[in-house]
């Protein structure tokens, strides 16, 4: 009997149904009002996956959602807990993933993630991105649906991410992203246009 994987298991949401619904609601609100921060339900982290990212995983993933893990998150503990609590298949090929769990180091290359088709743009891959914080980066002006006029958002991201995102954004096709840090989530749907910056982005 192989007991190693079960030793890595840990408890997830205290109230699995209600907590998952609260996090799902927060994720919906984050995507419908891009750039605003929404609070997630607290859950015990699995290093290096922090509470916010794990809470998103627990509420969004199930056995119908193939997940791609960034190398930083590809640990036995994370695999065992996601398999146990979410039951999501973990895929090696980016093309097959409906969700991708990424850290800041994985944002330089977003190639391969499915951006949806003209007929079914909703089938694109959603990026769950764990950052160290959601502010104190170069402030950019976001515009588009869900934003009254424009909103200044200072995510600590490298210019490479914005180039990668723009290269894959061909509306209605594109990638939606949920950034999470410190118990909060911030949405960046494909419909949001990134305008001029206050501090110049290289």
């Amino acid at each position, binding site marked *: 009997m192989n007991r190693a994987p079960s030793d890595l298991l840990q408890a997830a949401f205290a109230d*699995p149904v209600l907590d998952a619904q609260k996090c799902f609601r927060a994720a919906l609100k984050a995507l419908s009002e891009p750039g605003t921060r929404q609070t997630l339900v607290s859950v015990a982290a699995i290093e290096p996956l922090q509470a916010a990212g794990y809470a998103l995983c627990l509420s969004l993933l199930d056995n119908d959602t193939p997940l791609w893990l960034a190398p930083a998150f590809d640990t036995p503990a994370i695999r065992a807990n996601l398999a146990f609590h979410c039951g999501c298949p973990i895929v090696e090929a980016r093309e097959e993933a409906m969700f991708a769990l990424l850290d800041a180091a994985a944002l330089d290359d977003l190639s391969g993630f499915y951006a949806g088709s003209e007929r079914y743009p909703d089938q694109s891959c959603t990026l769950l991105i764990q950052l160290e914080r959601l502010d104190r980066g170069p402030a950019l002006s976001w515009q588009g649906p869900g934003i009254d006029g424009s909103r200044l958002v200072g995510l600590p991201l490298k210019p490479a991410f914005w180039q990668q995102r723009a290269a894959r954004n061909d509306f209605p096709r594109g990638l939606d992203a949920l950034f999470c840090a410190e118990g909060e989530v911030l949405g960046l749907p494909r419909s949001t246009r990134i305008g001029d910056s206050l501090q110049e982005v290289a």
Partner: protein
Amino acid sequence: MHTREQSPRQRWMAVLARASAAELAPFERALRDCTYQLIRPAEIGMTLVRGRMGGTGAPFNLGEMSVTRCVVRLADGSTGYSYRAGRDKRQAELAALADAHLQGPQQSRWLNELIEPLAAAQARRAAQKAAETATTRVEFFTLLRGED
């Protein structure tokens, strides 16, 4: 009843799944007498029951039944799982605790005190039911009919 070879753990999990609430209740204090963590608190769900006509026909969906499952971990690291028919969360937690204890150092004690009596009672009930059913059995014969 069992076509495949059962592992010892499969056997005790099956015994625990069939044990009634009244049979598990006397062990509640002994089972809970340890520090443990609920990895998956008892939760109620549905499962699809499939059957085969006569045990050999094509599979069909008989219907759905409610199932309660639970996963606990003891302080020594052993993880106990349970799946029980019905909606009794407390019994599911007790069965999971029993499964965890049975994987630990006191396995033989738990087997002798908990599993063997339950298994014997279940075998008795099954035999009684089979005997009751056997009295109502109707045998059909086709009498040989002469052709000429």
